């Protein structure tokens, strides 16, 4: 590409009527440019920007309001959750307390029952013991009369004389028994192997054994 510009071209450009050098401002245009930007600035700054900025501000406020509401709702939900949790905890504690109470009550009932059973058992033991004692007594009384009858029969046979007289007979038996109890009759005197002579110490021993048995018996049953 080749440009040829003679000096006269430039001169003609510069001096042409109205058409100046492109870099020399046309004054009316410069002034009108100022008017243009001035008018537009006035319109924009008074009628356009305030409206838009107001809308932006409102939008921002609306969004922030929405966010505030959401935050509030969240706080409420949090509070409700805490309340529920507190209630749940309370209920759990209460249940625990009730359970504990029931356990304690159950334990006390068991203890009471045991005590009662113990008392009952000891009462039964006691009455059994007493009954045994009574029966023994009865047996011993019966035995005494039978032993008397037997020994008189035996004695009358041996001696050969009838000792039918009851008073005599009774007096003799009583005397014999008294002797037997007081220990006047010794087995050595009657003869070895006589079962009657060993009766006294045996009965003493037996009595002692019975006492022992009584104490032992309760203890054993307790255990």
């Amino acid at each position, binding site marked *: 590409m080749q440009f040829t510009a*003679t000096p006269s071209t430039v001169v003609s450009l510069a001096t042409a009527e109205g058409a100046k050098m492109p870099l020399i401002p046309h004054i009316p245009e410069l002034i*009108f*440019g100022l008017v243009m930007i001035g008018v537009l600035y006035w*319109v924009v700054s008074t009628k356009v920007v305030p409206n838009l900025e107001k809308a932006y501000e409102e*939008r921002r406020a609306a969004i922030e309001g929405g966010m505030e509401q959401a935050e509030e709702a969240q706080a409420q939900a949090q509070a409700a959750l805490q309340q529920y949790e507190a209630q749940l905890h309370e209920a759990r504690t209460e249940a625990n307390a009730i359970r504990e109470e029931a356990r304690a009550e159950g334990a006390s009932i068991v203890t009471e029952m045991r005590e009662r059973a113990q008392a009952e058992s000891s009462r039964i033991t006691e009455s059994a013991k007493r009954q045994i004692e009574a029966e023994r007594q009865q047996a011993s009384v019966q035995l005494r009369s039978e032993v008397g009858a037997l020994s008189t029969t035996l004695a009358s046979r041996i001696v050969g004389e009838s000792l039918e007289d009851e008073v005599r007979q009774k007096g003799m038996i009583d005397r014999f028994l008294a002797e037997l109890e007081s220990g006047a009759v010794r087995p050595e005197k009657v003869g070895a192997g006589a079962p009657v002579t060993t009766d006294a110490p045996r009965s003493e021993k037996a009595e002692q054994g019975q006492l022992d048995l009584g104490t032992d018996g309760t203890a054993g049953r307790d255990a």
Partner: protein
Amino acid sequence: MILTALAAGTTTAVGAAEGGEGFETPTPDIFWLPLIGEGNWAITEQMVWGGVSVVLLSVVMVALSKKAAIVPSKGQFFMENFYNLARNGIARDMIGTKHFLKFVPLLFSLFSLILLNNWFGILPPVMNPTFGRIGFPIALTLVVYVVYHWIGIKKMGVGGYFKHLVPPGLPGWIKPAIFVLEFITYFITRPLTLALRLFGNMFAGHMLIVLFVSAGAFFLTQGIAFKLLSVPTFIMAAAMFVFEALVQFLQAYVFTLLAASYIAGALADDH
């Protein structure tokens, strides 16, 4: 292709060999369009279109922002996006969130005015970028120039403003040189480049479009070979339209961006 500007007129003969009337290359004269009156005080076509652009912008923008609501209508949505380009994309980013709102009306006015007038360059029926006339860019630059010096002086005082030209922490001997450089930048280079950049782009772009369109039209009047040549020429012209649309937007954006940057520089505490 040889373009020859002859002294006889401001016309050139290219297709002379074909025996036609010859092709008149576009000259800067195509920008001189007096409508009323003549000479130094003529009212030009660009002035009329400039006035129309202001009226058009005012009416449309007021209409679209009049019922601005929280939930925007289609029109308001479009308006907001356009407005946000200048408000957030330029003013807030350059000046910072603290002071930018005060300068949004000015920057938005500059951006919308330059953009529409630039696009006039490719929009029929206008087909002439207003800012291809140096007077208009100078007017806008003058406004920016006064504003950024004014806010700087208001903030720091005259002495403080000049002191602010030199960044702190420099060795003493270099300070005068830096001061001179910064002074030239602030008071001469910035306004000059701001106005000339916009003017130059619009001027050259319009020249190119006119050149391709008129050349294509001229080729159509010539022989078959030239008629065929007109096809790529018109394609080129169409490409130039698209390219210019981009350049015109970009120049509006750059002008506003630099204005915002100068304002931010005057507001800044330090360099």
